[in-house]
């Protein structure tokens, strides 16, 4: 529908207010990122004089060189990437499979299984019992603690189930008449039909995994090789005011004796950018999927 707008005084004022507010929102959203980007490319000592806004004043790659040559950052990036890829592939597949099972109207344990999952959204064992469980499963100081516990999340399950419920039954029926088994139906028919919602869920799982730091903090903080990028950034953030963090100390030691120096602010800015770049690159491409998938699955339940 096209609404006819008169060039009335009222309409001009309303449009002005709306456009200005939205431009303000865009500035407020982007400025912190752009400012941090500028600081990360600016000479650290020069930055501490203040006044950096959107553009580096004394351009340097030194901050990045210092950080990226630290093996800690390098291995943390690998761990973060590995957990994200594995969790996304396994998690999306497993969630879709459970969603298919509980979307089958004739399945006898349909309500029971749904209930078992839905209840997990509202109840959790708490930090201590969960920690003890992970320890007795051998998942403390282990990479798998990043992947296994969160394999199927109830929220994602509901979103996919709602999507499958909206598909026509005839696909499944005709495949069954052709003699296809349950697993084949799921793999060959349901999965391809669910592509849009699976893209949404994959994005959610990937972002959650990339952004997670608390599991590293709880289970793997004693093992530097299993550290993740977000956890390293969290440590820098927590210790930035006191300069007490091991990474910060190491970095300032590394910089001592050279003409270049890094400061806590520069390290934080540079790490923030390293941590955010993958998300900023990936997400605009997935945007059409998640808006579609979210309004489709999310609001109905």
């Amino acid at each position: 529908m096209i609404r006819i707008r008169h060039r009335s005084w009222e309409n001009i004022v309303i449009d002005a207010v709306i456009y200005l507010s939205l431009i303000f929102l865009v500035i407020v959203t982007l400025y912190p990122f752009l400012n941090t980007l500028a600081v990360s490319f600016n000479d650290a000592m020069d930055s501490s004089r203040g006044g950096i806004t959107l553009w580096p004043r004394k351009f340097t790659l030194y901050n990045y060189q210092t950080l990226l040559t630290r093996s800690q950052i390098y291995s943390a990036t690998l761990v973060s990437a590995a957990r994200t890829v594995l969790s996304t592939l396994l998690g999306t597949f497993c969630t879709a499979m459970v969603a298919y099972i509980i979307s089958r109207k004739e399945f006898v344990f349909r309500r029971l299984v749904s209930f078992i999952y839905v209840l997990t959204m509202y109840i959790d064992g708490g930090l201590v019992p969960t920690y003890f469980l992970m320890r007795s499963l051998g998942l403390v100081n282990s990479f798998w603690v990043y992947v296994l516990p969160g394999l199927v999340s109830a929220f994602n399950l509901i979103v996919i189930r709602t999507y499958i419920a909206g598909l026509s039954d005839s696909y499944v029926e005709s495949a069954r008449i052709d003699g296809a088994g349950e697993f084949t139906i799921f793999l060959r028919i349901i999965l391809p039909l669910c592509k849009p919602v699976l893209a949404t869920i994959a994005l959610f799982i990937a972002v959650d995994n990339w952004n997670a730091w608390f599991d590293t903090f709880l289970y793997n903080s004693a093992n530097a090789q299993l550290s993740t990028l977000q956890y390293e950034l969290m440590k820098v953030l927590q210790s930035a005011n006191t300069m007490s963090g091991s990474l910060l100390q190491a970095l300032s030691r590394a910089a001592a004796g050279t003409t270049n120096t890094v400061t806590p602010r520069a390290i934080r800015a540079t790490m923030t950018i390293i941590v955010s770049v993958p998300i900023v690159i990936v997400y605009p491409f997935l945007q059409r999927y998640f808006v579609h998938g979210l309004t489709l699955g999310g609001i109905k339940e």
Partner: protein
Amino acid sequence: MNTSACAAPRGKTFWDRVKQQKVLILMTIPFLVHVIIFRYVPIWGWLMAFQNYWPGKSILQQTWVGLENFKLLFDDPVFYQVLRNTLAMSVIKLAMGTVSSIILALMLNEVRIMWFKKSVQTISYLPHFISWVVAANLVRDALSTDGGIINEVLMRLHIIKQPIMFLGIPALFWWIIGVSHVWKEVGWGAIIYLAAIAAIDPTLYESAMIDGAGRLKQMWYITLPSIRPTISVLLIMNLGWVLSAGFEQQYLLQNGRVIDYARVFTIYELDYGIKMMRYSFATAVGIFRSVVSLILVFSANQLAKRWGQERLV
């Protein structure tokens, strides 16, 4: 999901159907084992809250203390502080988040230049996908006394003379949490309201225009009432979560000066339980949070049902 059981052919016993569906059941078993181990076995650990847990012994060899840990919890003044902080920050976040998302959706809906609308949306979703670790970094920088943008702007406008250490003022902490929540989630929150607005019958606007209603009046008398069901469902749904005001945000933005206003349940569990090796006490805190949340969620669900909305659970 009301008429689910009727789809199977009649006249078959339960066991016939189980036999017939053995493949589906076999497919389910690994996942059931997984969810039971990772989500339900920890609840068995709740027994610890009724013991004086000491590491090294199995859970059944511990000394039982009855409700001692809960008594300690309810006698602890810090507990009431935590409860206050959690409720206050939840309500502030919920109110500010809802209002700002609705306003953004109303505004975006009025934009007729499509590329502009698309760009604003894309940019406004971005912070939702950024971790709180990164967001907390950005918030700290923006609020810093050392060239932070907020202080700079306020000083340029001659509103303040000296930079203010915003993150060191206890009275401001809840509001910083609220505003940073809005900054991160406003665009994302608006998606659902935009979808609800898009579903409004266009003839409503046409007849309103014939009646001479301007755009503000149309928003107030047509758009807002039409999305009221969406608003109330989301509000009720979120009311169930008031005991989980978030944790990362507070943990990453707090500091010693404001901790009395920043401490929420998970921080309490960490600092007063685990770090002091009071494992049983920490478990009791977890149980309190979980049980009250469950009660709230189900009351919210009942409320939604009574108001004629779709069931949420």
